[in-house]
């Protein structure tokens, strides 16, 4: 046996041994790759050995994310592995490999880009960071303004404008004032990340750089100098959920931790970022939604999908709006309210300062299939002997709108004399029509749309107030405003819109407006209906 052959055989054993060690080593650091099962209960997921979350994070956020990550791993026992780099190369890696669960670039322009390429689903705002200059502590060269950057004794470095967010933002500001070219000419070198810029100033390879202020947290010998021209230079740091993630609930669990005002956001604030509002942290948050009962077929599926994706609980109460408002006034306040009509939203302005109109639903006359009583308009409902069902004026928006409609038609008294029953929801009217205890009912188009096999619907023409507009609002004291917003975004998604339309609603998304109480003309009716509704609720 020749020596080298012996050599080679020994080396084979060595390789086998090392690979075995590597394999086990990988396993024991707690990261086995096991096929992911769907998680009905997210907290149980940690014990079933799910694989870890991968976060692609911009270098400028490294210090703060490391702090948050350690906290998260200690608190929840779930593992997160983070890859740091500059925003652009992380995005490129994501495009090619499609591996990763979360993406945190230094500026949300990258997220817009990624969303455009369909790489990102949800976006959660985290914090903002201002741009400014970095110099050695004590500012030995007295660099205080943009003009100082162009001095011949001052060496300026920046991060690469195509790769790092900080220079992108600086450039867009300076291009507007026409100063970019001269600053670019004065730049000695372009580094690949903003941290390298700080490092250069630290080891005195440069005198000044353009950075985000939080980047300087691990550099006690450096100082931040804000300058007037960069006042508008604020980067929004937002977290994106990657579309191809195989563990959306786990990814969102960590995302919520980062965005929680009593967890991740605190770290951000400590490290010099400016934070906005955030949700409170909860391992398994429970969102409460109040919605008019007619909205159930339109939003129920979206809400269930949302629950699964986020790994949270959403408890929903569908009822007549009058009843819901009474509950709210009695102190049971949900995180969000999706009302049947703006009328009822305007009764709780103190709880819901802003609202967004989402859809419209019109009143129709529902009749049994075949229209045996030959009803073609509201007037036909006044035929003697007809049994008509309507919504209760105080219990639901539908009832309230019905009264307005009757009033507008000038036939209120005649119509009311044929009304045999007033229910709190349209579904009950549908049931009664089907069982034959009613000849006709006035309800929403969406109610009719849900029962097309048994019912027909007749349009009510010429009366504009017969259309209800559904607004959505998030409570101002909600613990989870961002979560509620994401639910709203889900409700506004294309698939959800299709569902609304199929259920008989008209999609009419408006902008967020102030939720004002109704004007005095209807105030007396309001006051009356609210107190009566409250009285009704107490019974």
């Amino acid at each position: 046996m020749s020596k080298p052959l012996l050599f080679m055989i020994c080396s084979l054993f060595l390789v086998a041994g090392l690979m075995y060690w590597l394999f086990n080593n990988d396993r024991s650091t707690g990261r086995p790759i096991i096929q992911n099962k769907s998680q009905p209960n997210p907290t149980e997921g940690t014990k079933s050995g799910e694989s870890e979350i991968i976060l692609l994070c911009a270098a400028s956020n490294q210090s703060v994310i490391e702090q948050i990550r350690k906290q998260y791993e200690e608190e929840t026992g779930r593992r997160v592995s983070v890859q740091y780099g500059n925003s652009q190369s992380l995005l490129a890696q994501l495009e090619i490999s499609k591996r990763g669960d979360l993406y945190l670039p230094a500026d949300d322009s990258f997220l817009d880009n990624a969303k455009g390429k369909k790489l990102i689903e949800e976006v959660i705002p985290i914090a903002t960071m201002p741009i400014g200059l970095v110099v050695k502590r004590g500012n030995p060269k007295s660099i205080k303004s943009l003009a100082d950057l162009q001095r011949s004794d001052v060496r300026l470095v920046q991060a690469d404008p195509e790769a790092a967010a900080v220079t992108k933002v600086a450039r867009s500001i300076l291009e507007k004032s026409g100063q970019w070219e001269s600053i670019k000419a004065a730049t000695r070198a372009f580094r690949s990340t903003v941290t390298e810029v700080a490092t250069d100033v630290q080891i005195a390879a440069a005198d000044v750089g353009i950075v985000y202020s939080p980047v300087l947290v691990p550099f006690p010998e450096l100082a931040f100098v804000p300058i007037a021209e960069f006042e508008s230079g604020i980067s929004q740091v937002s977290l994106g959920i990657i579309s191809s993630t195989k563990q959306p609930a786990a990814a969102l669990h960590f995302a919520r931790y980062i965005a929680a005002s009593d967890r991740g956001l605190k770290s951000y604030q400590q490290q010099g970022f400016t934070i906005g509002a955030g949700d409170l942290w909860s391992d398994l948050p429970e969102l409460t939604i109040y919605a008019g009962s007619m909205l159930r077929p339109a939003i129920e599926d979206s809400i269930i999908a949302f629950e699964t994706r986020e790994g949270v609980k959403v408890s929903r109460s569908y009822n007549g709006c009058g009843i819901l408002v009474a509950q709210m006034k009695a102190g049971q306040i949900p995180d969000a309210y999706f009302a049947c009509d703006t009328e009822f939203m305007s009764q709780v302005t103190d709880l819901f300062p802003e609202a967004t109109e989402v859809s419209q639903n019109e009143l129709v006359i529902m009749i049994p299939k075949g229209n045996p009583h030959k009803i073609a308009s509201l007037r036909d409902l006044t035929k003697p002997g007809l049994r008509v069902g309507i919504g209760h004026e105080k219990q639901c928006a539908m009832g309230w709108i019905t009264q307005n409609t009757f009033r507008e038609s000038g036939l209120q008294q005649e119509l009311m004399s044929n009304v045999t029953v007033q229910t709190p929801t349209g579904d009950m009217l549908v049931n009664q029509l089907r069982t034959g205890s009613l000849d006709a009912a006035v309800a929403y188009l969406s109610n009719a749309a849900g029962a097309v096999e048994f019912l027909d619907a007749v349009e009510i023409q010429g009366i504009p107030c017969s259309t209800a507009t559904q607004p959505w609002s998030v409570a101002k004291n909600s613990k989870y405003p961002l979560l509620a917003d994401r639910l709203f975004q889900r409700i506004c998604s294309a698939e959800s819109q299709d569902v609304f339309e199929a259920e008989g609603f008209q999609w009419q998304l408006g902008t967020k407006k102030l939720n004002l109480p109704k004007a005095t003309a209807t105030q007396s009716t309001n006051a009356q209906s609210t107190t009566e509704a409250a009285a009704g609720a107490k019974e």
Partner: protein
Amino acid sequence: MKTLRQNHARQVRDGIFFLVMGGLSSSFIALIILLLIADFTFTSIAEFRTALSKPEIQAAFRLTMASCTVAAIMSVWVAVPLGYILSRYRFFGHRLIDTIVDIPIVLPPLVLGLSLLILFHQPFPFSNWIGKGFVLDEFLRETLHFPVSYSWPAVILAQFTVSCAFAVRTMRVTFDQIDSRAEDVARTLGCSRAGAFLRIALPQATRGMITAGTIAWARALGEFGPILVFAGSTRFRTEVLSTTVFLELSVGQLDAAVAVSLLMVAMAVIVLVLLRAIGAGLNG
């Protein structure tokens, strides 16, 4: 009759010769020594110790040792037959193969890493007839339960790709220098080609194999670009010492970065000395 005389002019010329040769050589040696001294004085023993006690760095150290060794051994395993074939046989496509083997050496490291990433994550070329195409990484992960990218095999693969190229070069030269006559005679004595290779050529190549292994190990140690792009630099997972320096630098921990750099210098020196001793020992 000519009397003998010393030619002083020639002596002076000889002196100048030594000066120039010595001067050029020592300037390079001096540069390296100055670099090391600069690094040493930047950090202190205490910082060195704290940096090395961090569990991330210890994990990176272990992974580095394991992956470099595996990559080096694999490189030698591949380089020996490849070097032998390139040295001994002339065949159609010889020059082409020769060039291909040198590609990883001239390719910028990031290009190598990017190419590996693309190879593993995009559908294989010409595989469009299999559904959405054959994606290597998916196949390895789901079917064979052996994930490669962003995991330790990726580190080894990235290191191997470059270090093998160097190892092949070395082994090729080694076999070029070994007289093929002896193998010819062995064959006339009744040996098969394999026998001649194993009994005659290979024993003469031990020195070369050690050199190839050393070069491969050193190259693997220094590999950074491809590992960063293809394997990521996740702490405790795919972080090797070369990427540690990058990570520490990117957080602004210059002291830790320098400490790890010095650690790598020490490792390299120890391994070089060790392997050279083994080589000398083997040759008696």
